[in-house]
């Protein structure tokens, strides 16, 4: 029992206060008072959220600077201990949470203003703060009961936020699928934790440390898979991802940012905690499974994203892709640890955890930017946007930063974490002589495919909405986002750059984590000459985002200078686009998102099973169609071939069961009679 970390306590308290204030204002609005000053709900609740995030940021930085694994218990529930611990792993995730929550809360001030007269923002503030509280507790809880409680608080408040605009049936259905699947995951976790507890004897995380490997093989496998699936539902690994692309977009955009940025990371946190803290070295198959699932997840995610023209759904699918990349890292780390290459395991873990933070940042940024776009264009369909870079230059710029980062292009943060993952996979080839070693380079190649497809997808996601001519009236006179929203985006964009260029200075943070999990501190061998990352040894390859950025700026500067000088004498005119000499360029000439992704749709048609339908409508003669409807879409494989049938099967069975209760009292009596005789005959005479 250590003493409570004051900042963490203060942060939790602040979130709690935010929730309470939201509740108060919400009830006020519900009962009809407060209507006259609706701003109160918004400002108070989210001010608390900002404050809490700041405090949490400080707390996690301190915890990372002076690591300790002291636990202290909150006097919360009479029957159970509610112990909290801010060890380095937790601190890393709370740091992620704090950064993202800070930006999103700032964003919310501007984002929610338009809806403050029409909606009960008090309720929103309540659930928003309780979501943050739940998240903070999930990352810091130190025993099974408290963890699961926090987990469900997080899940349920996320549900309430997703369903906030519950007038739309689409929203309700998405939210229901989400909560049901999420709960299914939770009960898996419950089972896993309690099985573990039954063998270990306690429910404290400290008592689980590295003990899960001592389980008998069958239980070990069962518990491992239960954990993986349970956390996987939340993280959105394929095939448990189906709720994600529906639930994230329908939420208000600030919530979507949190959902995609940090809520799914709870699953990642859980995996990290279980795989590397609870389990010691595991059988090789576990790592293989995780790695394979990761690869599939990444590919499926990006492939679906490519065919998505709903801006927010597209981003949601990219969350799945990035989760896949992270999980690949974990899988590789598991295998390395089993094979005894602890340094490589450490590198893989570092890559995965760093990508967790990076993804939280740039995905949050992208969702916030998308949110401002959607708010001003009032549609999520890219085909109706276009040319926004002129109407909303700030948003466009920040979206571009996010797009570059998520495509893993140097020198931003996405590149760094993907580079680390590549290095780990590459080195993995040497770790074993068995055929499994082939998995690593193949995984690496598929990671490359994923990254390239992601780049293609974000060329679309930035080019279609922001570039060229507006494709709709709304897009033509869109409004730039409110200042608060832009500050938030600027903050995240800055973080993207810092995490990219400053990677070498951030990596030492991971030493404590890897020390605690796989028992080695890796950062000394990850940094070369101060400014360059290196993969383990001096020969094994280096990269320096900062250096690249430096040279890039120098070079570009020189070139630009020279070219400008030339252009001073030459004539620079702006005129209509040449367009191979076709006059009168309108938005109808533009390449649409559908057209852009068409080649890949055809090339991967085996996966997409694209369906198209051309229906001409005739009025007078059968030779001159008055209109032609063209429909084209792709088949949602998992929904159509697994979840749909499962659902129908269950409900059909249930309907059949209703025959039991068909109203005939004779039948009812007969049930009892038969039960009686059977029990008597088998029970009495033994």
């Amino acid at each position, binding site marked *: 029992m250590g003493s409570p970390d004051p900042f963490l306590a203060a942060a939790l308290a602040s979130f709690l206060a935010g929730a309470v204030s939201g509740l108060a204002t919400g009830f006020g609005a519900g009962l009809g008072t407060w209507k006259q000053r609706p701003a109160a709900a918004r400002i108070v609740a989210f001010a608390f959220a900002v404050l809490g995030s700041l405090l949490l940021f400080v707390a996690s930085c301190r915890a990372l600077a002076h690591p300790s694994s002291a636990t202290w218990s909150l006097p919360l529930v009479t029957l159970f201990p509610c112990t909290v611990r801010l060890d380095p792993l937790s601190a890393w995730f709370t740091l992620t949470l704090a950064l993202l929550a800070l930006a999103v809360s700032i964003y919310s001030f501007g984002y929610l203003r338009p809806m403050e007269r029409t909606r009960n923002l008090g309720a929103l503030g309540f659930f928003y703060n309780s979501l943050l509280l739940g998240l903070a507790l999930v990352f810091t809880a130190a025993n099974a009961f408290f963890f699961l*409680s926090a987990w469900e608080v997080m899940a349920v408040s996320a549900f309430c936020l997703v369903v906030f605009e519950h007038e739309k049936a689409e929203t309700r259905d998405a939210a*229901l699928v989400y909560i049901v699947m999420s*709960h299914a995951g939770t009960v898996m976790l419950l089972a896993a934790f309690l099985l573990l507890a039954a063998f270990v004897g306690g429910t404290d995380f400290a008592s689980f440390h590295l003990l899960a490997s001592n389980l008998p093989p069958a239980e070990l496998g069962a518990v491992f898979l239960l954990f993986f699936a349970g956390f996987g539902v939340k993280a959105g690994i394929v095939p448990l991802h189906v709720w994600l692309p529906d639930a994230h977009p329908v939420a208000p955009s600030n919530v979507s940012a949190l959902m995609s940025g940090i809520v799914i990371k709870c699953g990642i946190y859980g995996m990290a905690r279980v795989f590397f803290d609870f389990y010691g070295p595991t059988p090789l198959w576990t790592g293989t499974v995780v790695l394979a699932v990761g690869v599939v997840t990444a590919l499926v995610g990006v492939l679906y994203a490519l065919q998505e023209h709903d801006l927010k759904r597209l981003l949601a699918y990219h969350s799945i892709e990035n989760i896949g990349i992270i999980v690949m890292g974990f899988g590789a780390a598991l295998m390395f640890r089993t094979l005894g290459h602890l340094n490589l395991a450490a590198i893989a873990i570092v890559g995965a955890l760093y990508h967790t933070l990076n993804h939280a940042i740039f995905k949050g940024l992208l969702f916030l930017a998308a949110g401002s776009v959607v708010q001003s264009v009032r549609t999520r369909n890219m085909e109706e946007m276009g040319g926004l870079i002129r109407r909303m230059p700030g948003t466009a710029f920040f979206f571009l930063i996010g797009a570059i980062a998520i495509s893993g292009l140097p020198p931003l943060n996405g590149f760094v974490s993907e580079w680390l993952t590549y290095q780990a996979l590459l080195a993995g080839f040497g770790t074993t002589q068995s055929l499994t070693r082939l998995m690593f380079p193949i995984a690496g190649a598929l990671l490359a495919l994923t990254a390239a497809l992601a780049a293609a997808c974000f060329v679309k996601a930035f080019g279609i909405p922001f570039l060229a001519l507006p494709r709709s009236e709304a897009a033509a006179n869109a409004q730039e986002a409110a200042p608060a929203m832009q500050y938030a985006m600027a903050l995240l964009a800055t973080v993207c750059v810092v995490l990219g260029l400053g990677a070498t200075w951030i990596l030492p943070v991971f030493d404590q984590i890897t020390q605690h999990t796989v028992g080695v501190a890796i950062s000394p061998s990850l940094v070369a000459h101060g400014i360059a990352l290196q993969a383990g040894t001096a020969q094994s390859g280096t990269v320096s985002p900062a250096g690249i950025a430096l040279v890039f700026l120098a070079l570009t500067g020189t070139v630009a200078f020279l070219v400008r000088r030339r252009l001073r004498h030459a004539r620079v005119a702006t005129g209509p686009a040449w367009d191979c000499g076709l006059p009168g360029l309108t938005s109808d000439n533009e390449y649409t998102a559908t057209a852009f992704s068409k080649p890949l749709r055809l090339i991967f048609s085996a996966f997409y099973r694209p369906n198209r339908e051309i229906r001409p409508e005739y009025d007078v003669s059968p030779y001159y169609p008055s209109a032609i409807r063209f429909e084209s879409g792709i088949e949602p494989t998992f929904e159509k071939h697994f979840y749909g049938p499962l659902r129908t099967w269950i409900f059909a069975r249930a309907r059949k069961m209703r025959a039991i*209760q068909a109203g005939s009292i004779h039948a009812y009596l007969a049930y*009892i009679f038969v039960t*009686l005789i059977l*029990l008597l005959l088998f029970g009495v005479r033994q």
Partner: protein
Amino acid sequence: MILALLLAVPLSACAACAVSAVSAVSRRRSVLEAVNVTAFAITFLLALAVASQVLRSGAISLWNGFLYADALSALVILLNAAVALVCSVYAVGYLREDQRLGALDGEVGSHGAEAKLRMYYSLTPLLVFSMLLVTLANNLGVMWAAIELTTLASVFLVTFYGKVTSLEAAWKYAMIGGVGLSMALFGTLLTYYAGHKFPGSEGVAGLNWSILVGQAAQLDKPSMRMAFILVLLGYGTKAGLAPMHTWKPDAYSEAPVPSAAILSVAVLNCAIYGLVRFYVLTSRCLGAQYPGSLLLLLGLFSMGIAVPFVLVQRNFRRMLAYSTIDQAGMMVTALGIGGKLAAFALMLHMTFHTVAKSLLFLSAGNIYQCFKTDLFLKLKGGVLKVLPITGAAFCLGTMAIVGLPPFSLFQSEFLMIRAAFGTAHFLVGALFILFGLGVFTGVTLHVSGMLLGTSEEPRAAWHPWRDTPIAILAVILIVIGFWLPADLLELIRRAAEVVSP
């Protein structure tokens, strides 16, 4: 002495309301209401007194052991008295609203509204009296008689509205209940036979639990075997364990909501109480394995049977009934798992379920009266918009009943599953979790369909009589999720010790 008082108060209230037909003054509705509410308030206070006395000085008994109250009885008494009080307050508002809507001048077998009210206000105290007797009677035979009395007292509460369907429900209730109780009687009788040969067990004392439990080890084994099966099925019928559960949805959906709440919560507690008493005897006589496996069988079956009916349910009051069946199954399963932890979890669960389920029934009553239907098809959502407080309360209750933290039932279920895994009942734990998920799915689908969305109904006003109890229950529900009074917790612990010391 206090025990006698405890019994006397509701009985006299019943008598008062019953005879109030003759005197013109007391015909007035308000008098009946006043009598009921005050009576139940006093009962509750007495129950508190009993509980505190039991906490202070162990088990108390009266009339050389005819009435006997240990921690277990005290707990159940406390819970039931509380439910009775809350429901009596709610009933005032509910029945007034019914009268306003003209629901009381029924089409069939019609007495006037007064007659109906009088019936309600005199039968409810009778019901409460019999429930108290169940928990106070030391003699298993008397306990049986009291449980039978609960059935008889509540039959006419089920036919309250005199609708065709309510008559049907009442008939099924009476018949199945009758059969069940005769099985229970047979079991009681065999128990008496199993113990009647011992010195000092002649006459009344021969069926006194407090005496039997002392010499449980020497009881006649074959007859105890048979007795337990019969009692399990008998009181299981009262508790609504599958496959004896069939009367439950009918009765609950037809009875006026306050009575439904009492039936679903308090009577269930009584039935579980009876089962626990016999379980203790049997497990001490035959070892915990035999009764445990039987209980697990029925408990898991009840939980399983609830799932499909909740999934495709069309009527929210019936849905609540099935949820009660599910909960009964949980408690019985916990009893079957055995051991200190499970027993503790069982008592916790009983306490928490009492609060959550009565909250659910009462708020369901509000919804029913506001929307004039209990079919999901007819009310297409928007409850939260029309009845913000009730809707929120119903939402809370639902979350609690499906076992979501931070609400209390999660804690008891957590303990149950932990006990199951801890005692190597892996399959039991797995099924427990699986069925829980099924019920969660069904309830969530239906309830969110009900609460969310929009409705053209105007926003309803605040009804003090109906909404205050709900608000109070909601607050209690939230509080016990985090904090239990030390005394109550102690009482629960002691009650658990009665089951497995």
